[in-house]
């Protein structure tokens, strides 16, 4: 394995992507929104009468409470006040699927720029004549999208924890974040979500000619996350630690399958033939 060459390609891809203002803007604004603005807003609203009504037994959120598993009930019972319970439900459970958007989005935006963008910018041909093997190019491109996605989810998790614990401190009276769900989310599911987003982009990138097209097509990959949000609101699925762990497992499997297929079909001759 020519690691020096791989590192050079990673460096190139990251330099190229950081010079695109729109992409960088998305990669800064979205994480800030999801780890700072939204959670802080939710917590500040948690004591409002509207919110208390929503979560009351005959409010809009009633469905959510229908099948609440014992583990979550236990967690809630540690906090007697309704607004405390609302904070737990919002920050720990309802928001959890949203957090997964971060690694998925980061890896897929970067991968679209790295895989499909290379065609866009007409730089693929020079890359193809380098001494790097197909596998080395593929690995370089995987890492240049996957590693930043991991960093974003780790830093995002850290920021989320800081914001949630700080803003909710007056109401909760103690540090309550993270629970087991979030530990699994940050360290197990987020990397899997990154791999899944990456796999989806790799799959579509060989068939499209621009990063933009790749992004549009691979955007569909957030559908499972939307389903999780809806599933929880409807009381069908709850992101307890066990469930989160299983979701991670499924994501890993899907992501690995996509990447394995992508790796097998990543051949410079084929890439050229499709130019």
């Amino acid at each position, binding site marked *: 394995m020519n690691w020096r060459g791989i590192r050079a390609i990673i460096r190139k891809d990251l330099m190229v992507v950081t*010079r695109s203002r729109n992409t960088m803007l998305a990669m800064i604004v979205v994480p800030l929104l999801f780890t700072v603005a939204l959670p802080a807003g939710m917590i500040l609203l948690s004591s409002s009468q509207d919110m208390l009504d929503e979560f009351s037994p005959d409010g809009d959120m009633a469905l959510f409470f229908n099948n609440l598993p014992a583990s979550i009930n236990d967690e809630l019972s540690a906090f007697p006040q309704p607004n405390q319970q609302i904070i737990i439900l919002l920050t720990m459970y309802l928001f959890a699927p949203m957090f997964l958007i971060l690694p998925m989005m980061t890896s897929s935006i970067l991968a679209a720029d790295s895989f499909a963008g290379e065609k866009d910018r007409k730089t693929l*041909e020079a890359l193809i*004549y380098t001494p790097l093997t197909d596998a080395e190019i593929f690995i370089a491109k995987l890492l240049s999208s996957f590693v930043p996605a991991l960093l974003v989810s780790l830093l995002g998790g850290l920021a989320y924890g800081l914001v949630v614990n700080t803003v909710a401190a007056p109401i909760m009276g103690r540090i309550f974040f993270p629970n087991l769900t979030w530990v699994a989310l940050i360290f197990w599911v987020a990397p899997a979500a990154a791999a899944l987003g990456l796999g989806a982009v790799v799959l579509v990138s060989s068939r499209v000619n621009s990063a933009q097209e790749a992004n549009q097509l691979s955007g569909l990959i957030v559908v499972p996350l939307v389903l999780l949000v809806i599933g929880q609101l409807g009381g069908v699925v709850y992101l307890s630690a066990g469930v989160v762990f299983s979701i991670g497992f499924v994501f890993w499997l899907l992501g690995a399958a996509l990447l394995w297929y992508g790796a097998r079909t990543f051949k410079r*001759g084929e890439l050229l033939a499709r130019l």
Partner: protein
Amino acid sequence: MQNAVISARELTRTFGDKAAVNRLTLDVLRGEIFGFLGHNGAGKTTTVRLLNGVLAFSGGSATVLGLSPAADGPALRRRTGVLTETPSLDERLNARDNLTIYAEVYDVPRDQVNRRVDEILGLFDLADRSKERVGGFSKGMKQRLALARALLHRPEILFLDEPTAGLDPQAARQVRDLITHFSRQEGHTVFMCTHNLVEAQRLCDRVGVMEHGRLLAVGTPVELARQLGSRARVEIEVAAEHVQRADSLLRSLTADVSVEHDTFMIGGVEREFVPRALAALVNAGVMVYRVAPAEPSLEDVYFALHERNETS
């Protein structure tokens, strides 16, 4: 062939049922500048891809620098440099970064990367623009930078795919000078695809002419002309008052004579015609100011080849 750094035997690549390269048999010798000529779609770019192991063969075999493109692609590409049809530069990066990254990829020794990048930026007249984004460069500058990148790792064979296409005369000349420098000073082999015949004639030691994936002929332009039976042309300038006398004299010696002012253009003659005509003119008291024999140009050869191919 002994000294061949590229040798292809019956090399073939098809796309669907169309042969882009059709049973190409060719040797390119160490140190020569080889011109690969052909119309659009003749199969030039495909040949470069095959020889560098980036495209699989459909048939035949080839060795380049003693390696098999199919089996030893990475090792082979370490020793070749390719200037692609489009410069294929990262336009969001500056010139220096474009070079440095490829120096790493081509495994230029670490302690030499900076020195070599500086050196080549200087040689290619890009040093003072090295920190600027390549997106803002002129076409000529991009082409020079792309050529610099192809040379950074001191390849033994340099493949050039239409190196001066779309450049203005001055930029084209700069690029040509750099190519000659690389070949003559460093003794490396150049494989140059082009449809610029004047350029090929000026630069190339030997040329091969492709059409529809097949190689029609190989040789020096002069050899090709001989094979085709092309004859030389001569221009003879005489004193204005002797034009008439010279005219009847020359027409008695050969058929293809035309005249413009005081200069005769004579086509389709053997070399031996020149001293014979000159002696006759001088004997007849014609003042001869200039005799310019011209070998058949590569252009003559090129079109003759294509014509012959068409009729056969």
